[in-house]
């Protein structure tokens, strides 16, 4: 790399607010929190000089130094464990998984150590565990994970997955300030998606963890979803609008603890619910959502609760296979039409 190029990557301070991409919103959030609170630090593989595989932490090493932006060995269990230990001492670690797929070697540390500390002896682990998740970029069975269902049955972990730049910044800040462990999933397809560029406030703001967001109001049926699939849902809703169907789109944003009120409210409002997620269908968190509705909004339902999700297979690499595997816009349209006609 030329000296000029080297210099360029040093002057990498983000704006405050402005029109930003999803990835830039997260980077702003991290930067501002590190400025605000000296307890906040970053830890992970290649987060320092390289700025992370997706450049989410680009420039932070130069600004905050290697005492607060720590490149680690390839040791996810140690990254999570060390973050937990540091959190016990009052620090606010933000740990990165290079891909969310690499959260699996730390599954033990997360579910047994991080999740249970407060319950066992009152010591909250205020740490954030973040990284790129999601499929659809032909990255094959080991770089396409949607991990939320793995952690859904472990009490003590929060899970967040934003779908807009505004929410991404507000939620990463809220996660860092949260007194409990938060898994923060960033769908890699969204990072630089032009469609997601939006103006965000200059002022400090957070988005409350635990609250869903109605992305579109509707009367005829509800689509409950999150992450990159929010876009699929919004597109489908627009298409269906033309057909005279009024579709409500709920972006969960927080997956645990789930916003049960919002889920039940939309189910009761439209009486027809379609759940959409990118992970495999069986054992996905769609089951929890459907069960909640079946249990607590039964009398309001005018149709089966329908799940649109990926097939029960690993995520295949080759484009035609991956397309078959993942839920597509046409699947949502198809399901929504049938649901409406029910």
């Amino acid at each position: 790399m030329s000296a000029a190029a080297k210099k360029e990557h040093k002057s990498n301070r983000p704006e405050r607010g402005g029109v930003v991409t999803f990835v830039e919103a997260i980077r702003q959030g991290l930067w501002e929190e590190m400025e605000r609170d000296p307890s906040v630090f970053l830890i992970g593989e290649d987060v320092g000089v390289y700025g992370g595989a997706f450049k989410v932490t680009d420039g932070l090493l130069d600004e905050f130094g290697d005492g607060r932006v720590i490149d680690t060995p390839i040791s996810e269990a140690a990254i999570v464990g060390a973050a937990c230990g540091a959190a016990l001492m009052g620090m606010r670690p933000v740990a990165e998984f290079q891909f969310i797929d690499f959260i699996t070697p730390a599954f033990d540390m997360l579910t047994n150590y991080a999740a249970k500390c407060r319950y066992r002896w009152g010591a909250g682990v205020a740490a954030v565990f973040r990284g790129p998740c999601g499929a659809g970029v032909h990255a094959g069975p080991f770089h396409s994970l949607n991990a939320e269902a793995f952690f859904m049955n472990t009490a003590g972990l929060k899970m967040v997955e934003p779908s807009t730049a505004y929410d991404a910044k507000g939620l990463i800040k809220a996660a860092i300030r949260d007194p409990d462990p938060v898994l923060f999933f960033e769908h890699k397809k969204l990072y630089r998606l032009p469609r997601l560029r939006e103006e965000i406030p200059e002022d400090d703001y957070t988005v409350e963890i635990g609250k869903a967001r109605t992305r579109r109001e509707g009367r005829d049926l509800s689509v409950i979803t999150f992450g990159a699939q929010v876009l699929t849902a919004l597109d489908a809703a627009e298409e269906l609008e033309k057909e005279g169907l009024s579709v409500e789109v709920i972006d969960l944003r927080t997956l645990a603890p789930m916003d049960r009120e919002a889920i039940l409210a939309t189910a009761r409002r439209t009486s027809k619910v379609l759940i959409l997620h990118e992970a495999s269908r069986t054992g996905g968190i769609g089951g929890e959502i459907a069960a909640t509705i079946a249990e607590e909004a039964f009398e309001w339902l005018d149709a089966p609760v329908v799940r649109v999700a990926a097939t029960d297979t690993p995520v295949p690499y080759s484009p035609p296979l991956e397309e078959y595997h993942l839920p597509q816009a046409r699947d949502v349209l198809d399901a929504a039409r049938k649901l409406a006609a029910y």
Partner: protein
Amino acid sequence: MKNGSTTKTTASKSAKGEAEEAGARVSADAQGSNGAGDTAEARSFIFLPPPRAEALSVPDPLNERGELVCTDETTLAPAQMRELYRWLQLTRLVEEKLVNLYRQTKVVGGVFRSLGQEATAVGTCYALRPADFITPLIRDLGAVLVKGIRPREIFAQYMAKAWGPSEGRDLNIHFGDIERGFVGPISHLGDMIPVMTGIVLAARMRKKETVAVAYIGDGGMSTGAFHEGLNFAAVQRLPLVVVAEHNWYAYSTPTRKQCAVTNLADKAAAYGIPGYVVDGNDVVACYEVMKKAAEFARAGGGAVLIEAKTYRRKGHAEHDDQRYLPEGELEAWEKRDPLDRYQRHLISNGVATQDALDEITADVRREVEEDAAWAESSPMPEAEKAAYNVFDNSNVPPAFRPKVFGRGE
């Protein structure tokens, strides 16, 4: 070039010269790799035999009467030495009381004894400062007590009482107290090594001189978490001292089925850190080795591994019949009992009289009985408390048992 036979050319340094000629400023790191000024004789590869094939052992110190005692090499003052005796005795008597309560079915879970290895926990922990942190194994009750946890807390924990430090949520020494530098373990072996690495990473960020000590078994060292944690601590040169309690068994599994090293301390080599071997049944030696290790770590030397050679004289837990022990092994180790040994040591060195020691023991016994009674008298937790504190409840409501039908019931 002669094929089929092995010939040698002469090594030369001119390859390096070549690179320098080209004006290359090779990084010190990658430079180390090859062709760079090695003066050894020519060879196409270097063979490293498995190191330290012989088991290292420290000699048994004997007193004038030829009895097994403790090392004389010490910096401990007599008062400290008597205090050490108190901790050893307290550890043993608290455990005996626990066994007692267990037989009366007052202990809810199992009892895991440290009989025969008390000196390791007590001696090493006694060398720490109050602000230092430890994480013990189940068999390190001695270290927990030295760290300032009171017997009543232990009894209440074992009996699952509301007044126990985890309020009945977790068992035995599974709790913690940041103020007292005590981080209780979880069951999953190895996991505490990364956690303690984080403790000292945070302390360094906060500019504190804290040392962290993590105890681990011959068994626990086989876990991936141990490896990841100690490696990370070593890279960061963090003041983490790992005490490997080599008590020869992991449940029923002997060390030779656990790893292929001769000394657990040999594993230090893989992390580029210094190792120590100490007689784990010699409380004075354990103290001294930790003093050195903690000093080294605190001064910026980074992580240290200490192997304490000792022996688990009871089964894994009370229910274990130890069918797997070779005959005579237990008896041989009974002779090395750390408490008997230390008692002889104190008396034959004139640090304490038998009467003085008996007085300490009586005092300890009183404390144990008093604390056990306190714990026994304490209530069981209220059932509904189970719902609280999964998350910070000012933030997320407690996890009450859900009503079966959601609407208004």
